[in-house]
């Protein structure tokens, strides 16, 4: 009895050893590509053609879009990473700041790509990826229930009231507590996530969820929920069930649901996002995109580039990827006529705002989602949004700084004050004292002369503040006619630096 079992065990082990691990053929003309499930299938199908045309052997591994970024950052440095990866555009910030991908150059190819698509893969004024698809949400409307597209959210409310009075359940529904799907409403009323700074980047200190427009949107939502015009606790499945059964006339979704919308058999239209009285004419959804990037860890960047420009960046390949994926294409010449929904989504995307790829965006989602959920549960709209803004500001603060352990008056005056050299944030002789509540002070007797200084935190330059409390801001000038006792003050809450000479 036992012997038989033992034999069985040996058999299983032998079987396993036979199928265990196999060595991959790694040679100079093979490229390893990480792609999400659908693109992996397509690339696998096209691999023989690539080999015939370019002499490049493709090895495809399936890695979900959500995993690609993190896995690249773990596997890349130890030599296990891919040569090319498909990523979503909002991973660029992190990938670039870790030098994990290499810049691309589409000079001479600009007319082949939609500027909006190329824009998504532009970060810090450089292009980092080859986009193949873009996406944004639009308003889906049951034409039989709502014959004419509403142009403002106020109209949406009126339609909802009428439909409910007529015995239909809901005029409009939206994912509860989901910032991405609710953003077009926020933007229609003039709300935003981050304001823009002069150089075109985001000003993360300006959070627009509780701006006038942001609050107007929140109040509109709150009213819809309060008066029973919108159901709470709505997720993907519920949105769809309600639309399919005719219990909801309008909802917000993106091209990923294209086929399912058609399958409902409902007479539908895809409309741009309504605007708002007192806000914008048309609401702006977030736009997003997927594309190929080349790993900076790859030993075969030249080969990867060749593949990317000579095979991927062609209308033929882009057509193939469109035919399979059904998202609005990034290439101008791709024929989208086979998919009737694309035009609608593209039209709604005309005003779309690229979803910020900056790391600070990570602080937004949870707080904003919470606020939207609370509003759906009848909590005060203004209060909920204001709390969300406070939460985001706090989280960004942590993201940017971490704990403050020390603050240094660092500048050209340090050598005079007993430091081994100037501009040394690690020099303890010019450390400031923590007086509590984020106020740091220091008093030194400074010899006559002209100096410049800043305040550096935690003994390094990673976080430092200059004139007018700006992070990485300009040096502060200190001119002394005679030896003077100067008191320096740094307020961590406002980041403002004062000294007893400039600000007596």
């Amino acid at each position: 009895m036992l012997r038989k079992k033992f034999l069985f065990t040996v058999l299983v082990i032998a079987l396993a050893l036979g199928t265990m691990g196999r060595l991959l053929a790694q040679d100079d003309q093979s490229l390893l590509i990480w792609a999400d499930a659908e693109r992996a299938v397509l690339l696998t199908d096209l691999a023989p053609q690539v080999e015939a045309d370019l002499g490049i052997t493709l090895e495809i591994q399936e890695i979900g879009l959500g995993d690609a970024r993190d896995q690249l950052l773990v596997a890349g440095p130890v030599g296990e990473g891919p040569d090319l990866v498909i990523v979503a555009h909002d991973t660029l910030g992190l990938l670039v700041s870790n030098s994990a991908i290499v810049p691309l150059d589409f000079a001479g190819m600009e007319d082949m790509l939609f500027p909006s698509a190329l824009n998504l893969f532009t970060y810090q004024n450089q292009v980092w990826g080859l986009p193949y698809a873009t996406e944004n949400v639009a308003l889906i409307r049951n034409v039989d229930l709502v014959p004419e597209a509403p142009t403002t959210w106020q109209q949406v409310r009126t339609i909802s009231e009428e439909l409910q009075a007529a015995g239909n359940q809901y005029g409009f529904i939206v994912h509860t507590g989901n910032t991405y799907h609710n953003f077009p409403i926020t933007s229609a009323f003039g709300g935003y996530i981050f304001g823009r700074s002069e150089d075109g980047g985001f000003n993360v200190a300006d959070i627009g969820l509780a701006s006038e427009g942001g609050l107007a949107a929140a109040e509109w939502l709150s009213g819809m929920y309060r008066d029973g015009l919108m159901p709470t606790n709505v997720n993907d499945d519920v949105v769809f069930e309600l639309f399919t059964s005719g219990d909801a006339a309008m909802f917000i979704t993106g091209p990923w649901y294209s086929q399912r919308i058609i399958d409902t058999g409902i007479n539908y239209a895809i409309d741009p996002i309504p605007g708002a009285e007192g806000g914008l004419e048309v609401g702006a959804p977030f736009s997003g995109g997927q594309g190929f990037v080349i790993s900076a860890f790859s030993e075969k960047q030249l080969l990867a580039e060749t593949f990317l420009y000579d095979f991927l960046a062609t209308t033929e390949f882009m057509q193939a990827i469109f035919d399979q994926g059904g998202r609005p294409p990034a290439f101008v010449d791709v024929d989208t006529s086979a998919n009737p929904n694309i035009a609608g989504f593209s039209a709604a995307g005309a005003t779309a705002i690229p979803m910020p790829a900056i790391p600070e965006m990570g602080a937004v989602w949870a707080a904003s989602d919470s606020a939207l959920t609370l509003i759906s549960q009848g909590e005060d709209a203004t209060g909920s949004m204001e709390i969300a803004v406070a939460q985001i500001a706090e989280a960004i603060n942590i993201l940017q700084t971490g704990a403050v352990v020390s603050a240094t008056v660092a500048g050209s005056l340090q050598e005079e004050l007993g430091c081994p050299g100037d501009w040394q944030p690690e020099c303890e002789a010019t450390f400031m004292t923590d007086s509590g509540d984020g106020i740091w002070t220091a008093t030194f007797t400074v010899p006559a002369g002209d100096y410049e200084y800043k305040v550096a935190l935690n003994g390094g330059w990673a976080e430092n503040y200059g004139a007018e409390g700006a992070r990485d801001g300009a040096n502060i000038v200190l001119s002394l006619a005679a030896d003077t006792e100067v008191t320096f003050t740094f307020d961590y809450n406002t980041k403002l630096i004062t000294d007893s000479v400039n600000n007596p």
Partner: protein
Amino acid sequence: MSAAGSASSPPSGGAGLPSDPFNLLFTILRYAGLMLLNALGLVIIYGFISDDNLSLAIVFAVITVGANIITFVPALYPLRWMTPGLMLVTLLVIYPIIITVVTSTTNYNNFHLFTKAQAVRLLERQRYVPEGAATYAYQIFQNEAGEFALWLSREGEGGALEVAFAPAGAPIVAVANPPAEPPETYEGYRLLAGADRTAALTAAGQTVFGIGDDTAQISSRREAARPLVQRYVYDPATDRLTDNQTGTVYVADNKTGFFTRENSAETLSPGFRVSIGLDNFSRLVSDPGLRGPLVDIFVWTVVFAFLSVVTTFAVGLAMALVLNDPIVRGRKIIRSLLIIPYAMPGVISILVWRGMLDQNLGIITRTIADTFGVQLQWFSDPALAKVAIIIVNLWLGYPYMMLVTSGALQAIPSDVYEAAAVDGANPSQRFWQITMPLLLVTVGPLLIASFVYNFNNYMMIELLTRGDPPIPGSPTPAGYTDILISYTYSLAFGSNQGADYGYASAITIVIFILVAIVTLMQYRFTRSWEEVSENV
């Protein structure tokens, strides 16, 4: 205890029964196996050392030495039984734990992902075309010996074609009166095209052409530069990095993990991992998130873990007892049906439950609404959300308890029951005074483990409620059903971008300490359970 004493005296190195040929064979096999293990161990350790991987070399050294000590020291005879287990646990459990502890003292986060060596390597790979360098279009040539050469062409002054031929490791020479197209062969080199060119691209891209001061390198798929220069050069002696393009010198700041420009705040990406001592822990103490509803979350975590254990154990045991009774017909089938929840992947089960409890359309919600006229707000009402979590966790967990208790019930000797029956004990007395104490001997530690598992049951919360409903007015986003680990990890990971492994490790260790205290308290009980069993 006398029994235990006699059992623990180790046999003297296999010499116990020399007449037994199996025993001798066993001894020989054991030492032969050990020798093989040692040989392999040494090779692996040497391999890791030569790969500059000291930490794994140490781990394998510990494992190899440990195996030898266990084999040769007679007093460690009991450990021989555990040798394979100990080896695996050391490498795959204890070592990762040590790594977590070490990580908690570093700044390992999304901006400091790499080791310093990795960061330097990434930076040193960057090349640039210096000012005044010539850029050419290029073709790749190769000779019989496999050496590469570049055919460099550009529009010279006055629009004339200017061509140079650059073999690897030999001077670059200008080609006089060049042809408009590169020739098929040139000075023993053959023009590569098509698949040959593709195959050569990677190697040629890493080759330096020319010699001495006059070199050329491929800079992109279209261009070669003469010369192409390494942008950053790291000097380990001074711990500085020089940017050849701008002449800027960056100093490695080993406190913040960045190469920082002298006298400035400018830092280079990527940063690198450095030790920051206990900063992650002090940050944890000062984290505004912890000013939030931490007490509520902690209480709920304990309640959740406790109720999960109690409900699953009660139902599992009840089922095991009921189905132990021979008068129940079809027990085999029923047991198999009851085990099905355990066979389903947890992800889909939890999500199906979420669908069934959905406030708008869920079948459970609608059935209750139709029957009792109450629309239950499963995910908006804090109390109901907690009830939902307990119910779903019960569904997921009771088959495990049923399995374990069914097995454990078998170990209870029946004569104990006979004696009790003679003493006139009723069924309830028999259960509480005999079955339960004896059962706890076997499953007691499992209950602790189950408690701890649920204490950290991140997936359950994340998939079913995501911590919702949110707590209004909390300084950081938090929900009524958040448990300690889901709440603190959202502090450390944000939702998308702010992954901070160092901080998360610190949180992990603090949670571990909390859980360990709870475990130790419960562990004291197992001592009494064990004593029960020794008296059987």
